[in-house]
């Protein structure tokens, strides 16, 4: 019957076939419509033979998995934010299971807990993650704020605590976690350092405390006081408040009774047919019993407005109008006019859309959306996004609320959780097809949507040990193809972690980015393959990584052999050795008999030696290698160099002057500069210095020394192999025109003009040029004539040139 909504919402009728009462079980239900964990008979039946069963159900009561409980005495169950089940044992060991009862890991709450045992425990959620708090047999509290980054904290002693407090809870505020506990008539706050009294004279009922996640009430201020009139303490007490609502309410549960208490003096009581378990949610309370699963919440304002009896709210009128319209009654127009007269049509549409979101019945959702759609027709420019979005969200919500899926999220919870987390949860439940359909339906970007889910699916797939590697790899590749954003190496890593190395390698084959394959291949000790892939990737850093890995992994011989087959890696390694390990470089060249490079290395090493002996020794080694390399030229050159070095040592000793590091040319030049002409001559002969070089060298050195006499003598010693122009040039260069002039006449005719110009004898230059009837030379001389002093000469040249041109 539409047109009416109530605070009780039947989510599912539970068909989990529970014979026991809930009070006989350890129960934990995860928030946001999460799964339910159940351990039957744990406390009552202590016979060791009867192994209790740990079961996990969906919120709709479908069995997801079960496992016989083989571990120690279980005290408490709780769920993490990531939907892992925490099983807290009496000895303080916490076992972590996934929601398919697969054991993941375990950790201990410390020695103190181990010794004194767990009396009570609670799992709580803060911004840091999921935490665990323990009350030990010694009446001390121990807690860990984040089980993924375990730091155990033991809280200070509570003075005067003689027996377990009737109730306690964990609070997190301003990044500090504290324990709130009741003792006698007082309420205490226990933090890291101390225990302080928060409220005295708490009344004689001090046994229950409920704390909402967001505490909006100032500390220590009494928010309301209500006398339930029931003597026995309630079993559970949880907040039941909608975000941003002015109402604040607490739900208390006894064996057969439920009471809702708010900040008015009134209370609402409900009779319970069965023993029930309360699960606090963001916007209400889930109430779980053997046969049913219900949701108790404050009816949201939009829904109230529309469904209140005889409501005149715009949304209510619009809903009526639409119904009349369907009946083809003209009342439709009356209702519509009434809304439009008040100009409230946009509000009416908005209300209908919003209220649709709060409805769990598809029929009601539909009629509200139909009304909204109807109202929209009469509006210009009403933004369509809200409507479309709501239609989409409701489709998603209806799909996941389905009995088979069993995630009874409300719209408010869904928005808080976000679609990304919801998809994660579907993936956790291995509901891959549904998740993919949702992604496609919502047109989520591939990277966050379909690709990610396929990748998760593939990671699950590789764990299916009943299928062959080939089958699994093919199945994965078939589904994934080259979907963007899929990392085959991640999937392969998972396969390897499951002990399926062959499958991992097969999967890596599909990885298009060779670089991505490398880390896993290294991990799998397929270093040679990794090397190939690293080279393929073009990332030299990666190649270095693999090379250095190989270096440690293989013995030297096979390491070098591997490199020999990979020139890119080899050259990189050589570069590395050149800077870091010269000796290794030698070994490398030795390995493949590269005598040329070995020789080069010796030469290079030789020049690092400051002492001649060392250098000679190094060159001697080089010489041997060059011979082996059949490089006659290098061998000869090295031999000559050794000879020169020995001679230089001799000269150094004798003349007390450094000759080392000088080239042959410079050695001879230095000797001439110092006037040791005989020795220079000796070197010239010993080293068979070509004549031309020797002449250039000698006249330059003599000119530098200013030994013009020796130069003249030398010039006459025999016919110059370099001609006599160089003599002129060298003298001019040293600003000695007088000497230069001596050689000018000996310059052959074709260079004579240039020689005379150089020495500045323009007369003679002109003479020579005219004689040679060379126009270019005449122009050269002319260009040097200055109009003031060489007028006559210029005239003569001009005349000669004119004559020449006439012909």
């Amino acid at each position, binding site marked *: 019957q539409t047109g009416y909504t109530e605070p009780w919402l039947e989510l599912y009728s539970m068909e989990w076939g529970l014979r026991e009462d809930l009070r006989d079980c350890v129960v934990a239900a995860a928030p946001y419509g999460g799964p339910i964990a159940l351990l039957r008979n744990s406390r009552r039946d202590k016979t060791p033979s009867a192994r209790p069963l740990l079961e996990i159900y969906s919120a709709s009561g479908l069995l997801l998995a079960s496992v016989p409980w083989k571990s120690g005495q279980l005290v408490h169950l709780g769920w993490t934010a990531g939907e892992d089940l925490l099983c807290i044992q009496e000895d303080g060991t916490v076992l972590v299971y996934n929601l398919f009862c697969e054991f993941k890991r375990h950790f201990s709450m410390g020695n103190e807990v181990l010794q004194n045992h767990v009396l009570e425990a609670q799992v709580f959620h803060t911004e840091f993650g999921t935490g665990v708090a323990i009350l030990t047999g010694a009446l001390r509290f121990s807690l860990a704020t984040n089980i993924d980054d375990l730091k155990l904290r033991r809280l200070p002693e509570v003075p005067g605590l003689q027996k377990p407090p009737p109730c306690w809870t964990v609070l997190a505020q301003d990044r500090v976690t504290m324990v709130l506990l009741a003792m006698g008539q007082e309420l205490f706050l226990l933090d890291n350092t101390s225990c302080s009294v928060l409220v005295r004279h708490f009344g004689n009922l001090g046994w229950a405390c409920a704390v909402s996640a967001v505490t909006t009430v100032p500390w220590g201020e009494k928010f309301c006081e209500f006398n339930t009139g029931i003597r026995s303490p309630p079993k559970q007490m949880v907040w039941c408040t909608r975000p941003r609502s002015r109402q604040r309410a607490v739900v208390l549960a006894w064996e057969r009774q439920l009471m809702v208490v708010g900040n008015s003096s009134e209370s609402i009581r409900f009779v319970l047919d069965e023993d029930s378990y309360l699960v606090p949610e963001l916007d209400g309370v889930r109430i779980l019993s053997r046969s049913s699963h219900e949701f108790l919440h404050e009816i949201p304002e939009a829904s109230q407005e529309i469904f209140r009896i005889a409501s005149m709210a715009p949304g209510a009128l619009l809903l009526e109008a639409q119904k009349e319209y369907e009946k083809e009654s003209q009342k439709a127009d009356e209702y519509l006019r009434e809304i439009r007269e008040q100009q409230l049509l946009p509000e009416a549409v908005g209300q209908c859309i919003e209220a649709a979101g709060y409805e769990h019945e598809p029929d009601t959702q539909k009629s509200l959306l139909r009304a909204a759609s109807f109202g929209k027709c009469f509006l210009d420019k009403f933004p369509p996004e809200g409507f479309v979005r709501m239609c989409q969200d409701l489709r998603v919500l209806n799909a996941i609320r389905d009995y088979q899926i069993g995630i009874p999220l409300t719209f408010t919870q869904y928005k808080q959780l976000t679609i990304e987390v919801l998809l994660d949860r579907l993936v956790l439940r291995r509901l891959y097809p549904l998740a993919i359909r949702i992604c496609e339906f919502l047109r989520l970007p591939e990277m966050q949507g379909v690709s990610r889910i396929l990748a998760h699916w593939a990671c699950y797939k590789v764990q299916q040990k009943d299928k062959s590697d080939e089958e699994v790899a093919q199945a994965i590749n078939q589904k994934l193809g080259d979907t963007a954003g899929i990392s085959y190496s991640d999937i392969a890593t998972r396969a390897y972690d499951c002990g399926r190395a062959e499958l991992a390698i097969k999967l890596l084959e599909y990885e298009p980015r060779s670089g991505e394959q490398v880390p896993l291949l290294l991990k799998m000790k397929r270093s040679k393959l990794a090397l190939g892939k690293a080279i393929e990737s073009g990332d030299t850093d990666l190649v270095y990584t693999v090379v250095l890995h190989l270096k440690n992994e293989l013995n030297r011989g096979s390491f070098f052999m591997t490199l020999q087959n990979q020139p890119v890696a080899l050259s990189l390694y050589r570069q590395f050795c050149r800077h870091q390990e010269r000796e290794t470089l030698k070994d490398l060249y030795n390995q493949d008999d590269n005598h040329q490079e070995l020789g*080069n290395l010796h030469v290079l090493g030789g020049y690092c030696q400051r002492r001649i002996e060392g250098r000679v020794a190094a060159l001697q080694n080089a010489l041997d290698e060059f011979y082996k390399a059949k490089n006659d030229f290098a061998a000869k*050159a090295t031999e000559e*160099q050794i000879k020169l070095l020995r001679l230089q040592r001799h000269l150094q000793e004798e003349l007390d002057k450094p000759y080392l590091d000088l080239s042959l040319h410079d050695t001879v030049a230095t000797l001439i500069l110092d006037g040791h002409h005989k020795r220079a001559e000796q070197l010239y002969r010993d080293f068979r210095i070509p004549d031309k070089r020797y002449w*250039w060298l000698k006249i330059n050195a003599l000119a530098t020394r200013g030994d013009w006499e020796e130069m003249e003598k030398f010039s006459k010693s025999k016919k110059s192999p370099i001609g006599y122009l160089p003599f002129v040039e060298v003298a001019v260069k040293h600003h000695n025109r007088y000497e230069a002039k001596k050689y000018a006449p000996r310059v052959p005719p074709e260079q004579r003009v240039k020689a005379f110009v150089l020495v500045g004898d323009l007369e003679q230059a002109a003479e020579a040029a005219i004689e040679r009837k060379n126009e270019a030379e005449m122009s050269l001389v002319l260009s040097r004539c200055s109009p003031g002093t060489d007028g006559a000469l210029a005239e003569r040249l001009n005349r000669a040139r004119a004559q020449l041109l006439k012909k």
Partner: protein
Amino acid sequence: MALAGRRDAPEPPDFGILKRLARDQLVYLLEQLPGKKDLFIEADLMSPLDRIANVSILKQHDVDKLYKVETRPGPGASDQFCFLVRPRVRTMRFIADVTCDEWSFYLLPLDEDIISMELPEFFRDYFLEGDHRWINPVARALQLLNSLYGPFGKSYGIGRCAKMSYELWRDLEEESDTEGQGRKPEIGHVFLMDRDTDYVTALCSQVVYEGLVDDTFRIKCGSVDFGPDVTSSDKSIKVLLNSQDKVFSQIRNEHFSSVFGFLSQKSRNLQAQYDRRRGMDIKQMKDFVSQELKGLKQEHRLLSLHIGACESIMKKKTKQDFQETIKAEHSLLEGFDIRESTSFIEEHIDRQVSPVESLRLMCLLSITENGLVPKDYRSLKTQYLQSYGPEHLLTFHNLKRIGLLTEQAAGETLTAVESKVSKLVTDRAAGKITDAFNSLARKSNFRAISKKLGLIPRLDGEYDLKMPRDMAYVFGGAYVPLSCKIIEQVLERRGWQGLEEVVRLLNGNEFCVSDSAVEDNPAWECQRVILAVFLGGCTFSEIAALRFLGKERGCKFIFLTTAITNSARMMEAMIEAKA
């Protein structure tokens, strides 16, 4: 002077964004380390860093002191050190116990059309040592440029490294899945070329102004230090050389012989503008001073600097018989008078003119002749060792490995026909004939390529360097740079069709790929914007030649190079320094 129907070249895209990106990322990295810190910088990153973020920006982000990475921090150092280094083994030795972040700075825009990766060691590392370390940065640079100014419609290339870089870049593009979103590209084509495709051009003496300035004073990171001989004062001046410099931008691409004329004309114009003051009344004078004088003064300052530079170049070049060298070079390029050139080189070595220059000429001889005849190979090397020191034995080894200075293998010199000929003719004559055949029958790829592509312009009359006909003007009209000719030909043919023989002679590894996903709209300006990528460095002569080609064809070349290079830098990279 535009020809009829010639389109103006499009404007280059704005590369300032590259600088901003690099700066923002650096600032982000600095902010990851809150509080005062000292910054240690690798020496060769100093200049690039200066172009990206100056000291005041660094100070704003709590950089206290700046050190070179080799230095030890002095007393009073901050308690946090931040190192900015290239990933090299030798520098990492200075640094221990650090956390690493990557400053993905690949591209430094030196000018409106030149982007440098500032990786001078690329040349040696890749071509000599076979080290593939820098291919990744090249691919990433392409990816970045493609994402900012692409998508590039067509990719051409030649060379092994070009191919690998291209393929790695495509892989990266595939992995990143970022779509072009139908953006209108600013750069239409990309052309990748390995330096070893054309060593000849890089080995030639440069004669366009910018190239000459680089050869003479070394342009570093787009700026040059003009010493006292240029500034005619007692201090050096650091000058930024780019299109912002109104004087420089007009002469940079000119043949040196036209530069003096241009500068003197310019100074006369400037004088005339100053002289206008004479007839002015007070108001006009006021306007002149407030509006024009500053600009004129600035121009005047630049003009005198460039004139100073020219004079200094002239002085240095005449000293070294520049003309003779150029003449010898031209003979080598044309393949005439090889004996004479060989003697010239020999004398060059004997006179110890310059170790780098001598080496350059030897390499040019070898590369144009496809190796030296064994006799010359031995004797030139012996001479060189005697002149410049025995450790160059290793230099020669390097040069041989990289293929810059090689020996003609025996047996290759004579074909069957020639050996028959030589049998018929007696000793001396045979020797001569063999010599003659040598120059023809060698597998001289340069000679053959040069012939195929017409790199040596036929001379009919004087080549007017002021009004260039073709790209040969950058080498005095004697030689069209091979690298640029290849680019011209491939762009003209939209691929390698018809160049099969040339490709074979260049050892292949050519490619031409159209990205089918990119809309090919001939009306778009970007179709006429080409990114020319030089792997292993490019010279200012090549840049000038392609700028010329761009003007002729109405297109714009953007240069991406691993570094600006010239013959000296290439030789120095090969020289094995005494350890």
